């Protein structure tokens, strides 16, 4: 039987792919629209039988993140896996299908006064997309990222095997935590179909304290003071549209947010202002089409930004830096019109120079012309290869999109 015939017979809607289905420029032949985990399994069994390369997708907001897949025959679109399976408010737990958008989930949870504190920066993203990319929002400073909130996961492996780990209780150490392994794996180990999360109550009250930052040193100093302060900010975010200047915004949550915000304001200086709404840039990416991830140690923030500025000036580039100054987990965006060779030079130079400071610069979304190692060096690549070889021995899941060409 042909792949076409088997896909048509597998019990799931499969349509021919169109131009809009390209993954970082690579056009698949088919798009499958499964509605259940079992549907995904059936589709992946067909893919295995016909040696089809598979890329999972949710809302597609971050589908172009990562290098283009080496090949892509079948897109598994989780849009119809869109049910909130359970919201156990009394247990502060929810179970959802991977295609549920974070917006829809947020509404469901808010109706009972709760929330998933992981809040990725792109509107309309799905739970699956958030997990696959590991992207996180401002609250990561206090609550960690989606991997810290995930308590159970169901996945389908390349051969169609359905596997789960964890469960729907917050405290659970039975067996290996596959959720950790799949979070941030960019679709290279299998398809995430369901997830369970621990929830938090909605904040009783919130205040944002913002202050202009004349230079990087002041940002690091303030972030350090706030992070070590008993005022317990929920988030400390930096926005730096051009080298040099910028803003620091601090979120304080709780019944006494107004009072605590005043104390934060005192720490931040005379220019600081308190608002009941976030600044317009809060929780958003600094750009979309040419985006890098910059991670490091909080005490190296200023030094890291100086490296960024120096190479930007040398190469006449204008990086926009934004993200969590509290955890030194930032994004760097460059104008899409930037010269690809200069971008490549910028990435390599900054990457090498921040490494001794404990920093890492990796690609998030890069235009095709930028010739640079997308992910950069990583420890434990040998172990990662062995994990990939066990989970996806034929390298058919999002091939080539991850570290070391996995």
């Amino acid at each position, binding site marked *: 039987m042909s792949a076409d015939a088997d896909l048509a017979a597998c019990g799931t809607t499969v349509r021919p792919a169109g131009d809009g289905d390209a993954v970082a420029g690579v056009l698949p032949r088919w798009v499958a629209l499964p509605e259940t985990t079992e549907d995904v399994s059936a589709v992946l069994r067909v893919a295995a039988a016909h040696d089809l390369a598979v890329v999972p997708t949710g809302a597609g907001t971050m589908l172009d993140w990562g290098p283009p897949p080496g090949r892509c025959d079948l897109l598994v679109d989780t849009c119809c896996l869109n049910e909130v399976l359970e919201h156990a*408010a*009394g*247990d*502060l*737990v929810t179970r959802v299908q991977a295609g549920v958008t974070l917006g829809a989930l947020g509404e469901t949870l808010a109706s009972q006064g709760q929330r998933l504190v992981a809040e990725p920066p792109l509107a309309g993203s799905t739970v699956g997309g958030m997990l696959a990319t*590991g992207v996180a929002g401002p609250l990561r400073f206090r609550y*960690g990222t989606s991997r*810290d909130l995930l308590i159970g996961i169901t*996945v389908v*492996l390349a051969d169609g*095997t359905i*596997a*789960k780990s964890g*469960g*729907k*209780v*917050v*405290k*659970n*150490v*039975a*067996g*290996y*935590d*596959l959720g*950790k*392994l799949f*979070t*941030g*794996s960019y679709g290279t180990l299998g398809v995430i179909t369901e997830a369970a999360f621990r929830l*938090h*109550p909605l904040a009783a009250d919130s205040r944002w304290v913002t202050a202009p930052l004349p230079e990087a040193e002041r940002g690091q100093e303030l972030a*350090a003071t706030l*992070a*070590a*302060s*008993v005022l*317990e900010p929920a988030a400390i975010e930096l926005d730096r549209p051009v080298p040099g200047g910028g803003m620091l915004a601090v979120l304080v949550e*709780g*019944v*006494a947010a107004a009072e*605590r915000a005043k104390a934060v304001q005192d720490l931040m200086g005379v220019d600081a202002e308190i608002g009941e709404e976030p600044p317009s840039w809060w929780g958003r990416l600094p750009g979309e089409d040419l985006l890098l991830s910059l991670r490091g140690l*909080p*005490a190296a923030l200023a030094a890291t930004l100086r490296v960024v500025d120096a190479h930007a000036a040398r190469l006449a580039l204008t990086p926009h830096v934004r993200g969590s100054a509290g955890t030194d987990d930032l994004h760097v965006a460059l104008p899409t019109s930037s010269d690809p060779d200069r971008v490549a030079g910028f990435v390599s130079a900054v990457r090498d120079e921040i490494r001794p400071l*404990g*920093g*890492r610069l990796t690609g998030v979304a890069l235009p095709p012309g930028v010739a640079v190692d997308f*992910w950069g060096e990583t*420890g*434990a690549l*040998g*172990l990662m290869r062995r*994990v*990939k*070889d*066990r989970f996806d*021995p*034929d390298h058919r899941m999002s091939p080539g999109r*991850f*570290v070391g060409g996995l």
Partner: protein
Amino acid sequence: MSTLQRLTARLSEILDQDSVITDPVRLRTYDCDGLTYHRATPGVVVLAESAEQIAAVVRLCDEYGVPFVARGSGTGLSGGALPRTDGVLIVTSRMRRILEIDIPNRRAVVEPGVTNLAITEAVRDQGHYYAPDPSSQQICSIGGNVAENSGGAHCLKYGFTVNHVVGVELVTPQGEIVELSDRDPGYDLLGAFIGSEGTLGIATKITVRLSRTPEAVTTVLAAFTGIEGGGRAVSAIIGAGIVPAAIEMMDALAIEAAEAAVHCGYPEGAGAVLVVELDGPHAEVDHQFAAVERICRETGAFEIRVAASAEERAAIWKGRKSAFAAVGRISPAYIVQDGVVPRTALPEVLAGIDRLQEEFGIRVANVFHAGDGNLHPLVLFDDAVPGQGERAETVSGRILDLCIEHGGSITGEHGVGVDKSRYMPRMFSEEDLDTMQLVRCAFDPKGLSNPGKVFPTPRLCGEVPGVRRGVHPLVESGAAEQF
């Protein structure tokens, strides 16, 4: 000479004489961990002092195909550090240096034998602490915490070891020294390694995240006539949008035991006590305390005590923290169980435990982390009475069944170890377990790292199925030819 003897003979190439134990009497010191009814005398014990030594020992194990087990302080409660009679026990308790304290980056780098509490003690003066606080924190090692993904009473608000460890240097089961960092791109092997119970290798250096000491801590003790009132209070606290640092509950029998052992002076006539600890900025804690106090009164608390000082807080915690050992005062023997249920299922599960007590004539004292549904039933028995031990084991197992039936877990923090591997198939399908085994095979293809733990049936990893890339290793080495 046995394989193990041949391996032991070569240990002197790596280690000083006083770092290798072969004397049968001394070996028996290591025959169990905190789960004392499983015992096995290790084939040989190695007291390691560095990652390089551990790597060299593990490479010998790999060469000879000899299993090895890592052990920290040996306080685990699931037999995770139970040695192998045919293997090497690698003890990390000599590796107890705090290598680096880095307050500006809120982290510390420590060797695996450092105790949990030692980290907090080293940074307390600088206003920080290490958040996970298992009951054994005075003696348990951080390496053991990493292996077990240890929690503690305060993990309701602050999470587990996996949420507070940002880097690990480990020796893989093939003897490589590998660094895992939360900043590195790639698979979250750090997250997969933590909680793998020693089956994916041995942590030799751990970077932990330090947390800011909260401005205010208030501990409330509320006494109820029965467990139902306490349960209603817990639901109402969570329902009010409050996430306390800890919510602990003890039932009448557990209170009786604690009184007998440490005279904790809990309110007389209490059928249940609730310990609620709130921490954070003063302004938040004051507000939450007012709400918790009101909720406890409304749900039937007949006495409420509040501790604001460290001494008063210690007095409230004394009964709770001593509960496990205390039941020794009211029963010759007992089993400490560790199961989890969705918090809202607690009343039903407790009723189920009551029925089991009646059916089998076995008493169960209940101590639990009520906030996250983690039960620690203490199943009491007299080992001098024929048959009682078996009945207690049955009750203990049935409690786990109850947890699974209600959508919970067979272990919240003690680990699967050797004790509960047989329950894994009740919680996970064969496919689930096979998939977990893929991780095992990636790290430990020969299955030498703590074999027989966590998973019910050891499987051979075999060769990776699928398309072979490149030249077969036997061809490459000249040992075979392909035609």
